[in-house]
């Protein structure tokens, strides 16, 4: 693979926060590169810095030092709105607690990233995405009317609808039972294969982590194993 195919790159990424005990280093000198269509699982114990790393990679937070290149753009050089715009165009998210907007229907939730990216085909695109996750009959339902599994499927449809370059998934099956969890994982990897989207997955679940092509293990803010 050449440099053109690198969609996400971390260079000496560090994050420190001040606390009553002094300066805490949550992420320390993390560097890696991810290529188009790859899937990577970041695993580690609670407090190892996985979620912070994910936030830094997605531009939700800014590093104390180091750089993040997402789809060729240096996130650390962009302001908050710049990072938001880049996320709208190139990034998808799936969260443990689904994070659907309770006031919007399933269809409207899926339309949201397309509308934020300023795309015109929001309605049709969202309907197709819901069809792909098998929820074509629940388009007008509100999140409170859907089960946990259905809500996560809506979240996955929403994550893939804008055909992002990178999809960040934070414990996507953490709030689901094992059977539903497996179905959600299948869906995620099927779409990954079809859309050639790079997946960055943070999880405690070794089964789902094992399905990723690459595995990174974090301990005390550092990547100790990466393949």
């Amino acid at each position, binding site marked *: 693979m050449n440099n053109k195919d690198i969609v996400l790159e971390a260079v000496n990424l560090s994050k420190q926060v001040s606390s009553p005990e002094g300066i805490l280093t949550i992420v320390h000198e993390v560097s890696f590169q991810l290529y188009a269509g790859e899937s990577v699982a970041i695993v580690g114990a609670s407090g190892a810095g996985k979620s912070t790393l994910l936030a830094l990679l*997605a531009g939700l937070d800014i590093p104390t030092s180091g750089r993040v290149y997402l789809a060729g753009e240096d996130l650390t050089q962009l302001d908050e709105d710049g990072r*938001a715009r880049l996320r709208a165009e190139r990034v998808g998210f799936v969260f443990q607690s689904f994070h659907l907007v309770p*006031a919007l229907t399933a269809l409207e939730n899926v339309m949201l990233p397309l509308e934020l990216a300023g795309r015109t085909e929001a309605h049709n695109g969202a309907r197709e995405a819901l069809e792909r996750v098998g929820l074509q009959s629940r388009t007008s339902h509100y999140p409170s009317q859907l089960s946990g599994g259905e809500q996560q499927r809506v979240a996955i449809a929403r994550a893939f609808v804008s055909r992002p370059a990178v999809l960040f998934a934070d414990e996507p099956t953490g709030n689901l039972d094992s059977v539903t969890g497996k179905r959600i994982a299948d869906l995620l990897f099927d779409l990954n294969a079809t859309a050639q989207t790079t997946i960055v997955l943070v999880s405690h679940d070794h089964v789902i982590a094992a399905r990723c092509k690459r595995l990174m293990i974090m301990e005390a803010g550092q990547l100790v194993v990466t393949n």
Partner: protein
Amino acid sequence: MLRHAIPLAIRLLSREWKSGELGVLLMALTIAVGALTGVGFLVNRITQSVKFQANEVLAADLRIEAADRLNEKYLQEAKQRNLVSAATTTVFSVVFREDLSQLTNVRAVSAGYPLRGTLGVATEAFAAPTKVHDVPSQGEVWPDSKLLSALQAKVGDQLSIGATTFKITRILISRPDQGGGFGELAPTLLMNINDLSSTQLIQPGSRASYAFLFAGEQKRIKNFKKWLSAQGKRSERIRDVSDASPQIKSAIDRSAKFLSLASLVAILLSSIAVAMSARRYVIRHLDSVALMKTLGATRAFILTVSMTQLFLVGIAATIIGSILGFLTQQWLLYTLKDLLRADLPAADFLPFWLGFITAVVVLLGFALPHLLQLARVPAMRVLRRDIGEGTSYNWLAFGPAIFTIIFLVYWIAQDTRLFIGFIIGLSIFLIILGLAGVLLVRVVSSFRSAVGISWRYGLANLSRRRNESIIQIISFGLGIMVLLLLGVVRGDLLADWQRSLPINTPNYFFINIPTSEHEEFLTYLKDRGATSSRALPMLRARLIKLNGREVTGLKFTDPRGENFARREQNITWQADLGLDNQLLEGRWWDKEDQGLSLVSVASEFQEAMDLKLGDSMSFDVGGEIFVAKISSFRKIKWDSFQPNFFLVFAPGLLDETAGTWMTSAYFNPANGRVITDLVRRFPSVSVFDLGELLAQVRTVIDKAIFAVQSVFLFTLFAGLVVLLAAIQSTGDQRRYESAMLRTLGASRSVVSRGILAEFATLGMLSGLLAAMGASLAAWLLAQQILQIKYSFNPSVWLIGLVGGGVLVGLSGWLATRSVLQQPPASLLTLNGRH
């Protein structure tokens, strides 16, 4: 991206509306708009009605007066402008009946007079009047009761005026333009203007005064006044409602101030509810906004969504609130139809705009700062929910709110003194409420160890949410304070106000009482059952110099100043400052000042001539020159209907100067016979009947009281919405905690009693503060606005304490009760993220 923001905002709004999220916000805003538009419409209509009444005092909407003949082109111009007009000429002349004669104010009037108000006539002197809409026909005259008594005449007799003889056909009892001053104290006789030339009364050098009266549609009158002012000569005096009698003006001013303050309280309370519900709205939307940011929404997008929602809520509140205000006003008009004139102009759209501006201003000041915080929520919140909660009541949120309050107060009060007073009062009141809240929460917390589990839970909640508890105590306190003001104090205040114009308020003034007879006159009054007020000496004086400079050479910016400088003044001397006089500046004299050249000046005179303490004023009193130093300024309460003078001298200085006395007294209005006898017994005394004017002032006060009561309804609703918003603002947290407690094994009744304990304590604390506030506010209202004495009512404290506890306790308990009926698990799942 932004083009999607508005449809998204509308979608979110409609969904939130369905789920009841926006209910309280919209309700609060609607009440604010309703209060303002309702009051706007009402004040507009009532002011117009009162103005019409004041116009009746002028007998017209506009009049021009002069000592020389007025130019006929004024009448032609008025006709062209579709205004109705009438003319009057007044000349002092002696009227004869056989061998009796009396110096009389002969008033010749044209058909149509009076243009506003009506003439009251009777067939006997001092009898109850019948209203008529015509004027004496040619060859006929209508003398007033005083003239009739002086000439011992009756209907059907002949009177000689100048070169002609006229027949008495009616007795003039009242005419609308008799009030306002004491310049026309001689008896009056009404005749037809077409007879005037035949009397040959008007000769070169004769003392006559001429007036043209005009009436018509307001705007036309306004334009015509401009035209007249441009044409008019310096010697011509143009008068409209703004020159109405001080009694009427004083009543209008009080009503308008009271109404404005009442609406302002409603708006301020609604604003608190708006701020509270906006804050809750923001807290509930932190997660959604963080998510939208994660998905790529920029700050501009979030702001556009928030602003669109705010704008739409504002529009909805304006429409609903204006309709509410309009309906209230229609209902009030219906109820007031006997008091208000039927031909008032239709309501215009101005109050709708005022309502919209209010909605926008309240939203900008109270809701926008909270919503702006949404744009600052970090996207990172999707992963870490502990960040981005910074939506406490911070200074950023308070700044625009404070500015808004100041703006609203100024806009509504339109009176610098009232504005400053209200702002300072409100600030002090809020600071006291806040400090008392802190203290009370602390005291209450110390009881935790002494009470059972439910109360401990309730009290613990109070002190844990200390800041919120204090804010709630202040809001509940304000709400309950208004309820107390409305329910308890208002009754006292209004009774006091009505008492300020009691039934035995003087209805007759007696002037020209000779000094030699004044003791005897007062005894005569007393013996005939009259309640007389103070008697004061009265002298005519002309101001000739001010600080050594001739007044004729001085220029006054205030036209009243010119008037005061030009006209002869009635002056008096007096040892005591009456209860109806308030010293504004300087000091009142004591025994040691007896005989010193000191003068106390009324505020109207001071303002018109721009006088300062220590200024010297030279007066010509019957050819003798007196120079006096201004030692004090007084504010006169004109509606006391007691003898009052712009200029009062220290006793001992003018005592030897020839003058007369005046007094006022209350007579049973039907007792006309006594007045007739009195006029015969004391022929030189002039009797001035105030009955008509007094009735007008009473009507104005009655109207104002009704309007104020109606406006306070809005305040009551606003207070209730604050209660609702406050309960709703902590509702989610409370629900979650209740579920947690029940999960841990607390019974429903323990949790329920805990909630009740918390709200009841909050209510009692608020009630205490409210009683304090209500007593203070009532005292201030009585002192500053109504200028009456207020007697404190101790039951306010008991009602505040018990009522607050019950009202807030029950409301809070009812609002959160539904939570207890759901299984705790579902609450933890649904509301775990509050």
